[in-house]
């Protein structure tokens, strides 16, 4: 056997084993998530959240919402947060050195005045300029912090330092939350017995093209924009299947930065958000889990499949590419920071399953796919494999992808059925047909650029321009 044969065998066997393992994981995740979602729906079938919304016995919660140049929508966003059903609530808006008029708008709209506040830097952060509270008692839940720009992680750490409550809910300020979102997110903490719940993640849904009035979601529509629509499908797959399965395994590594609830004491004990990574949301969850594992304290990260948080997805290739670039860098940085856990039995599911899965199938997937694709094309050109074989392999992978997407769409219809119109579902399924040719390759390319940027030591988030949900009370469709 020639050296070339051995090389090609290693490459092809390697890619084959990798692909089969990945497909096996997808099938497992898809099927395993069903049980967790079913259990959740059965459990919450008759929970009356209204009874508890006004309770004085529910634990205190602080919402932490960093804002940077959000002047266009900040007033509506804050109003939406203040209207949530929850009795013991504090809403902390952290103005992260915005260059626009966000702060002035907040001061005017909510009658804010500087309030003396002793700031404890339990987690080191950039300087806080001022803490504001409202003169008007109807806004007593609101705290606005003005600070020197330091990035999202730093702003969230300021929020943690300022927060006076037991649980923190970290959100993107422009997200639209369902009215009972907080009660649902806090419930797992209150249901803990011997196992400490350290964090709860919520499902994020795409709000593009949805009807929003007075900071509330009125009607759900499938996004008109192709990129946003494709992300809707992607989010259904990721949240309804992926995260539910990992939650059932207690191996969840990521709670989206757009919406997550945390036990504040554990967050502080872990040192808060890491501002040296662009994947601060994932890094915090991994660090919290690692902290609990190392102290041998039984713990859990819970997940709520209800569509509780709606966010605006990038609609242009430029912004979408930046987002995926950042996610890739965040994943690599996080896994690098916690490499000690890689196949380390001391960390149980975290070390033996979650970390390796993320390493092989999230972090390495883009370069393997990228290289694999080109190697196969070259091999076909060189006649090492026949074109027919190349096309058969491609068909096999694409057909599997369609099947997985259709399964995710079915789960969505069976469970939450947010896109009720037949035409919406048809659009979603037709969009899925284009995924392997447009959306997916672009995502892989953006991830490869993420690798390149990481090698170049680029640390920035990249500007994330949003179109906004529209001004109240008009309905704006994208």
């Amino acid at each position, binding site marked *: 056997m020639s050296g070339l044969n051995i090389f090609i065998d290693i490459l092809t066997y390697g890619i084959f084993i990798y692909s089969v393992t990945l497909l096996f994981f997808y099938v497992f995740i898809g099927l395993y998530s069903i049980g967790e979602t079913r259990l959740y729906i059965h459990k919450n079938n*008759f929970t009356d959240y209204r009874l508890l919304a006004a309770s004085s016995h529910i634990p205190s919660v602080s919402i932490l919402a960093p804002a940077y140049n959000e002047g266009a929508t900040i007033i509506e966003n804050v109003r939406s947060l203040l209207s949530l059903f929850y009795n013991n609530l504090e809403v902390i808006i952290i103005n992260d050195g915005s260059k626009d008029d966000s702060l002035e708008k907040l001061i005017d709209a909510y009658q804010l005045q500087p309030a*003396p506040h*002793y700031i404890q830097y339990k987690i080191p952060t950039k300087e806080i300029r001022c803490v504001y509270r409202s003169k008007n008692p109807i806004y*007593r839940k609101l705290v606005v912090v003005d600070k020197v720009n330091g990035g999202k992680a730093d702003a969230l750490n300021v929020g943690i330092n300022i927060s006076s409550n037991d649980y923190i809910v970290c959100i993107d300020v422009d997200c639209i939350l369902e009215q009972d979102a907080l009660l649902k997110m806090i419930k797992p903490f209150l249901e803990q017995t011997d196992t400490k719940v350290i964090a709860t993640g919520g499902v994020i849904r795409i709000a593009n093209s949805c009807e929003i009035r007075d900071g509330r979601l009125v009607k759900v529509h499938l996004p008109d924009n192709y990129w946003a629509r494709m992300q809707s499908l992607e989010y259904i797959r990721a949240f309804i299947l992926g995260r539910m399965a990992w939650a059932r395994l207690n191996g969840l590594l990521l709670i989206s930065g757009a919406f997550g609830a945390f036990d504040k004491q554990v967050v502080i004990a872990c040192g808060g958000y890491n501002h040296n990574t662009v994947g601060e949301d994932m890094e915090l969850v991994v660090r919290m889990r690692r902290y609990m594992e190392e102290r041998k304290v039984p713990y859990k990260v819970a997940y709520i499949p209800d569509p509780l948080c709606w966010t605006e997805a990038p609609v242009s290739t430029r912004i979408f590419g930046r987002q995926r670039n950042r996610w890739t860098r965040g994943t690599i940085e996080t896994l690098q920071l916690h490499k000690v856990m890689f196949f380390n039995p001391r960390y149980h599911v975290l070390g033996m399953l979650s970390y390796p899965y993320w390493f092989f199938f999230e972090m390495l997937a883009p370069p393997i796919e990228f290289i694999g694709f080109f190697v196969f094309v070259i091999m076909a050109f060189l006649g*090492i494999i026949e074109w027919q*074989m190349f096309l*058969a392999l491609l068909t096999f992978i694409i057909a599997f992808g369609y*099947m997985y997407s259709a399964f995710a769409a079915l789960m969505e219809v069976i469970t939450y059925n947010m896109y*009720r119109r*037949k035409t919406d579902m048809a659009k979603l399924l037709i969009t899925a047909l284009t995924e392997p040719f447009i959306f997916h390759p672009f995502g892989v390319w953006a991830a490869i650029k993420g690798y390149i940027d990481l090698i170049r030591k680029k640390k920035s988030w990249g500007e994330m321009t949003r179109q906004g949900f529209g001004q109240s009370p008009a309905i704006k469709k994208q």
Partner: protein
Amino acid sequence: MHSRDTFFRFIRPEHLYLTALSFIVVTSILVSAIYIYLYVKKKRHFLKQFITDKLDEYISTILIGEEILPDQLLLDEELTDILNRKSGQQLAIDQLINTKKNLTGHAAESIIELYEKLNLKTISIQKFRSPLWYKKAKGIYELYMMNQKSLEKQIAQYTNSNNEYVRTEAQTAIIGFSGFHGLSFLGTLSYPLTDWQQIKLLEQLQLLNPDKMPDLPLWLQSTNQYVVAFALKLAETYQQMHVHTEVVHCLNSPSERIRHQAILTLSRIAQDDTTQILKTIYAQETYANKQTILKQIAIIGTDDDIDFLINVLKTETNDTLKLEAVRATMKSSLDGDKIIAEVASENQVIAVMAKQINYEMTK
């Protein structure tokens, strides 16, 4: 070199095409299932709408025309047909429960009578008798929401069920039926009572007139830590002064959460020596409980506690505890401001803390 010399000698394009074809067949089945589900859900939506409208009509007739009783109502044929179907029955039950949640008194009773007249109680009982936990729990829920007290004894048997959801629904049902007397299940409970369930029960009790809890001292000494925690909350909420001794005893519990709740309860049923007791345990308590003690002294403290608080300010290194001590000092004494001003003159940090507390107190 040809593909038959490599890995591809084991796998042929036909194999891959065949597998891809099977994926496409499964995809087609899934897509068909999606549309079947969408159709079923849409039909269900219209059915729900129809049932809601019809039931609203009947409820309005009962509520407006006081002389008409639910058993005198004549149901139209279409609704009767629908209510003979399983899906229709469940939708009707859900609808009646939703309506009843917003009503009280005669109106609520009429809903219950309608539920019985439509023979929906039988459906709930069938669910209650199901071996499946989620059906059983749902059956219990429906029965207590429709105040079916005749089943109290049977439901009470499940208050210590090994299934968490059946157990919690049964506990809620018993409180719903018997109020404070229903709390007797605490005496035999051997499973956890989560904070969520405790809050739910407290909220449920809050809707009733307070009643005696003769077994409260026993619950406070229960071997089930969850029962002790809940009993402490009951003592706090209903200011059960007579269990002061038992609550003080809970301060020796090995569980930090029980001690925490005991501190909170003591401040609500405070006696002359309560702050002294709290001050005595302060040194050996955890950080979180130290914070709770200082917060409670801020509520029940007097001039007698100032020396202790000043000592905390001087000896504690943790700023959160210092902040709480400043707050407690300023709230416990009429001269609190002056005392703190004196300490603050030598300590800039205390001065900033005092400003914050002053602002909070004047708001």
